[in-house]
């Protein structure tokens, strides 16, 4: 076995995580996005430490312009806009990430089972998905919030349910594309049970695209949450959320531009960062197609 000695066979030695990171870092904008997102997450988590004021305290005069004590001024009820914007990251991120996670949690298994088992399981699941896709998201959100009330959890449910189809379709397509690959066949050949093959072998290989879709969905969910806020269906006051602030600010766009501009900017920056992170992930995990299967829901 001398000739087979591995001594001369060079393994391109790089750990998986390192490869992932270096591929991710190839896109400069993705790095910027990741840093931006990190900053936003830090804002959300450490809001009590960062925010100069209690976001619900109505202390100062209302609609003050930017000043030394209130960098971005105050809102219609005299609350500090900067503090509210910092706390607002919490609502946007929890609703964004929560609903994306919920959509994935429900949609992915549905898609995997449909794609792997095929036949009537596939037909039934896909009709269900069609149904969800066909019913407008706003209607869904409206009904859910009207029935169970507007709260952060309910928003997550409403937007999450609307996100199921994207995940289900993605998971199904990806499952179909690897269902007949040799390693899946091999798994069956080694005697793995069907659930084992589906939820270990197959699912493990969908994580890349799912991760990308998660980020995209989260960024969309942030926008949908804000859109629902504009319709008055967002996170209930006085909890600050960017969408809610935008809605409040709409009446004062002339008197106090910073009131409306800043939450809008926060929203745009968050979406931008998420979009770039999604791009970076796509490059890093090698999912080629632009994940634009999501639809503009608002």
């Amino acid at each position: 076995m001398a000739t087979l000695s591995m001594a001369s066979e060079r393994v391109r030695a790089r750990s998986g995580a390192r490869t992932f990171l270096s591929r991710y870092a190839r896109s400069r904008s993705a790095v910027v996005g990741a840093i931006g997102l990190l900053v936003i997450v830090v804002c959300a988590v450490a809001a009590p430490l960062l925010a100069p004021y209690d976001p619900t305290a109505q202390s100062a005069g209302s609609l003050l312009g930017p000043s030394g004590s209130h960098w971005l001024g105050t809102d219609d009820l005299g609350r500090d806009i900067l503090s509210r914007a910092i706390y607002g990251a919490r609502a946007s991120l929890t609703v964004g990430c929560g609903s994306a996670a919920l959509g994935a949690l429900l949609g992915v298994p549905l898609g995997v089972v449909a794609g792997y088992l095929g036949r009537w399981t596939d037909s039934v699941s896909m009709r269900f998905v069609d149904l969800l896709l066909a019913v407008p998201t706003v209607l869904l959100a409206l009904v859910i919030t009207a029935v169970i009330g507007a709260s952060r959890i309910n928003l997550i449910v409403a937007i999450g349910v609307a996100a199921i189809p994207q995940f289900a379709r993605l998971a199904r397509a990806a499952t179909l594309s690897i269902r007949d690959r040799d390693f899946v066949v091999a798994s069956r050949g080694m005697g793995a049970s069907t659930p084992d093959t589906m939820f270990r072998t197959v699912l493990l290989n969908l994580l890349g695209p799912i991760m990308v879709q998660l980020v995209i969905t989260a960024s969309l969910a942030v926008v949908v949450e804000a859109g629902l806020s504009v319709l008055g269906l967002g996170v209930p006051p006085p909890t600050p959320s960017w969408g809610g602030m935008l809605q409040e600010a709409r009446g004062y766009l002339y008197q106090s531009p910073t009131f409306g501009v800043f939450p809008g900017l926060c929203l745009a920056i968050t979406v931008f960062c998420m979009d770039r992170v999604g791009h970076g992930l796509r490059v890093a995990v090698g999912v080629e197609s632009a994940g634009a299967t999501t639809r503009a829901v608002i």
Partner: protein
Amino acid sequence: MRAAGSGRLRPATAEPHPVEEHPGEPALRISDLVVEFSTPAGTVRAVDHVTYQVARGETLAVVGETGSGKSVTVLAALGLLSAGNVRRVSGRAEVAGQDLLALPARERRTRLGADVAMIFQDPMSALDPVQRVGDQIAEALRAHDRALTARTARARVLELLTLVGVPQPAIRYDQYPHQFSGGMCQRVVIAMAIANRPKVLIADEPTTALDVSVQAQILELLRLAARETGAATVLITHDLGVVAEMADRAAVMYAGRIVETAPVARIFDRPQHPYTASLLASLPRLDQPQGRLRAIPGQPPDLRERSAGCAFAPRCPIGGDRPECRTERPVLVARDDGAVACHHAGQAVTLLPQPDARPSVAPPARPDDAPAVVEVVGLAKVFPIRRGLLARTVATARAVDGVDLRIGHGSTLGLVGESGCGKSTLARSLLRLLEPTAGSIRIDGADLLRANGRQLRRLRQRVQMVYQDPYSSLNPRLSVGDNAAEPLRLAGVPRTQRRRTVLELFEKVGLRPEHADRLPAEFSGGQRQRVAIARALAPSPAVVIFDEPVSALDVSVQAQVLNLLRDLQDETGVAYLFVSHDLSVVRQMADTVAVMYLGAIVETGAASQLYRRPRHPYTRALLDSIPVPDPSIRRQRVPLTGDPPDPTAATTGCRFRSRCPLGRERAACADRTPELRQVDGRWTACHFAEEVA
């Protein structure tokens, strides 16, 4: 040499376009070509001062392992490198004295297709899937002749289609590439290439993606094309058989450089470069007794890390440790009818296996009456083809149709046949990955098809499989160690014990223990195939099924894997079912060979007998189709005609009848399906087996 070659290639009488030969002025001259790419990991010099030339009417073969820069050289020369990360292209690429690289892009484009034409590797993807085939050929004509009317263009295209052997050209003109088989697509690409009678024809692995039988047809066609146009041909290939068969001269590339160039006969006879010699030595051969192959250790170098010395030094059996090889890059110097880039050029010949030096002792013959591990009787698998609203079965594909097989303990059964003949279906049926339609399968005497859940799981531990594509047979998200441990996990072996077993197996298949925690993506094809082999051996099976285990590997790596398989069999006594379309590889591995055609075994017997004296016309034709890497035995082919058949078509009588040189007109062949019968010490399903010599 060239005179001899041209004599054969272009009989003066059949010369439609007299070719003036300008020995001093080659049709294509590539000189000092350097191509660099910038990659995140650094600059890759894919082509490093490559120089070669071809004269009109001459065929130059460019050989080398994958990644050696064969394709990039020509693409760069023609300005067809479309990658965004090209860093540098320098040198000259002269076609009829005009340097293409010096021309502005627009002007260079007008030369393409007119003066130089290219034929690509994968014919299916080389054609635009949404345009009619005929229009795509016509486009080649009209791009260079604006005055051409649609009608005349169509007429010309029909001529061309006829010329390249596409039947019913008028109908085929309006079809789309997906309606063509691979071989037919390649014919179309060739028609496109010769449409404007180019001076230079460059074929980049034109047959690699095709079946052996079709390969022979396409090679024949290429020869015809060269003769028709009188063009200089550059034939890029990694198949030394094709080189021996086709070329006048060969250039051997390694790591972006030409390491040797010489007339073909010289190359095979007296290779000057150790790499050339090693390549030749690592080939399994049809015509010689089997023995251990001389594999080239290691892998081709990483082009990012350029060492000062000879790129081949780390793998070189001669220069390996010599200091000059490590420190000084050898340059190409003229030597013995050609040129070579090696410090120790003279010594390479010694690497060639001397026919008598090969171990003529065949491995101990495994008695046919050894107890059977696998016994298959009357196995059939019919796929229903569903169409329409209610997905009703409108046709059936008889992928496997009444196969009997027997694999003895510790022996190897080779299964050969063209693409689509049912090899994989048969192999998968043995694991019950597919539920056979009829027949019985016994593993160690136990009935596989009647086994219930628990029994089946136990039996599956006894039969393991290694798949064709090492890039898709491992779960890319599991470490290779976990991949190899999967059968153990499924058998309920505890984690620590799994780990131990896997490490032992890794050592056996020549992988290092520290590799176990890495992902498959970090390994080369050969290494992955080792992991797959380790995985198959993990539950100590009685038989391992190999479905084309080496067809995706380079020759040098292929030899390593084949050797490993032999060693493992010697060590563990496991039986193999070895499926391949490569007859030489099967020859190398199998004790017994079964030849499959359209779902049935047409001939089976001991490998030595079958290869020496095939009795079935199909076996005969298959053997004939294979280019042998020995220019001295170039022979007139009687290759298979037509495409591999469609298993949905119902046939009566002999299945091979339509392509058989013997049976086409004989009534017996049409009336009676030939049964396997004993002829000359093997089993053959042919009414006229005795006539085949």
